[in-house]
């Protein structure tokens, strides 16, 4: 695990370039894919929160999948959805407490963020470092505590 | 029509409670009640821990089983190759016309069930007809009337 995808909402300007980058990155046959990241208002003016899969430690989506189509990729630490195995039963979409398994109507398939295989395209295009890929150094705390039920950042 | 299934637990307990015993249990149910009542299938499914859909799959795949009540007299016409070339077809048609049902059906009054079976191994005595388990060899078209009273 060389690097870690870090979300720092305070720096987010709400410009949604990340959504654009994600849609383009996941286009199929020229048709844009649904963005796996959504920038939403945090409850105050000018407070924007990029909402994206937290790659949980004990993911509800993996537990909900009855055909074992969701698996963690050890290199990237991301929980990846194997499209060929998915039977579109929508269990993971309903079970994810953060709504980060989505249904892409355009391509009629379930999608989720897989950190673009370890090099998230949204982090590249984010103008304000709200989304960034930080190399992991030894003295970094193992995991940053987040006040949600599932610690966010990745092992 | 709810069949009284008092004997069912004894039939099921005769075999280990494993999926492997399904066909043996179904055969004993078929022997006892002459068909597979739906209630019996449900209880067998739970007893052997086999999904009900799979029990139905097996009950409809094999010729031995019938989901519908059979007549008192089950007439089985052998249509194996030897019986076929020695006139089984005419005997089948005579029986079908006299009973006014097609092979595989039961008369409305539940008196007769007519079935065809692929070779029972008595080919030397073709054509063979079995009425309630009793074998009749070298059956001729003219014997058909007598057959209806037998068994």
């Amino acid at each position, binding site marked *: 695990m060389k690097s870690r995808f870090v979300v720092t*909402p305070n720096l987010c300007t709400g410009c949604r370039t990340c959504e654009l980058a994600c849609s383009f990155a996941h286009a199929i046959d020229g048709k844009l894919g649904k963005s796996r990241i959504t920038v939403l208002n945090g409850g105050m003016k000018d407070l924007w929160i990029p*909402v994206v899969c937290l790659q949980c430690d004990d993911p509800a989506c993996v*537990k909900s999948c009855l*055909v074992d189509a969701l698996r963690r990729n050890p290199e990237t630490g991301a929980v990846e959805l194997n499209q060929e195995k998915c*039977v579109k039963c929508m269990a993971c979409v*309903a079970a994810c407490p953060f709504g980060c398994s989505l249904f892409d109507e355009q391509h009629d398939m379930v999608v989720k963020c897989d950190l673009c295989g370890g090099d998230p395209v949204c982090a590249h295009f984010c103008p304000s470092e709200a989304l960034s890929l930080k190399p992991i150094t030894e003295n970094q705390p193992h995991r940053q505590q987040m006040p949600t039920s599932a610690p966010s950042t990745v092992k | 029509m709810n069949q009284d299934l008092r004997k069912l637990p004894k039939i099921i307990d005769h075999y280990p409670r494993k999926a492997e015993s399904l066909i043996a249990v179904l055969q004993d149910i078929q022997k006892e009640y002459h068909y597979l009542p739906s209630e019996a299938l449900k209880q067998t499914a739970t007893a052997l821990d086999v*999904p009900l*859909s799979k029990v*139905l*799959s097996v009950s409809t795949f094999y010729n031995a089983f019938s989901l519908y009540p059979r007549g008192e007299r089950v007439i089985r016409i052998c249509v194996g190759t030897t019986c076929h070339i020695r006139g089984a077809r005419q005997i089948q048609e005579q029986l079908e016309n006299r009973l006014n049902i097609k092979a595989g059906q039961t008369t409305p009054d539940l008196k007769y069930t007519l079935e065809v079976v692929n070779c029972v191994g008595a080919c030397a005595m073709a054509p063979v007809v079995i009425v309630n388990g009793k074998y009749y060899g070298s059956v001729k078209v003219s014997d058909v009337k007598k057959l209806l009273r037998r068994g």
Partner: protein
Amino acid sequence: MVHLIINGKVAQAEEGEMLLTVIRRQGIEIPALCHHEAVEPFGACRLCTVEITKEEWNGWKNHVTSCLYPVESNLIVNTHSPTVIELRKTLIDLLLARCPNSLKIRQLAEEYGITKTSYEEIPDADNCILCGLCTRICDQMGFDAISTVDRGHGKRVAPPFDEAPPDCVGCLACALNCPTNVIEFTDEGNYRTIWKKQFELITCAKCGKKTITKEFAEVLSESRNIPMSYFEICDECHRKELAQAMGGICSWSREAVS
């Protein structure tokens, strides 16, 4: 690592991989109507048949279904040999006789240059090609709600006794993966109906959007210990809630800073 030759080009595969996976990895498209990665390969439709041979077989050829033929080193595979093409055409021709108005089969037929079946069309046949995907996926998910009944040409897929299947939870995996879209279902108002069984759909507590059926959620909650509360609102509202929650923390930290 196993090395084999597919259509003249060398290909690599892991021990135990099936031929079809390797063929597809080379970007070669061959039909495989009864194949789905979620379930074991089945070998029913035979459309993925390819021609194989080996040096040491000196000329002898074999035709195998690639979906379940394990890779072997120095196997020579031809995915579009004349015999294989003719077999696929025959299979599609036979399928057209069975389901003349199935869109999927007609598309496949066009691909192989067949417009109309050369056999007698089967009277009142539905579009089911008995690929078994619906029953096998349902089994794989642990519900075993539907199965095939009877055998031979009269074989069909049905719930037990052709009544509402007790074990079905209305997850639609059967209907959505049927290659010829034969399994009917309706989502109207709060209800979903499939296999003559009615299910109540969960309505999102916030925005009223319909998600999965209650029965499905209960099964997931019990068997995979997922709190029922996760299912109360839809994915969109979950995201909004997450944004509000994270928003609360940031504004608290902003006040602390300023």
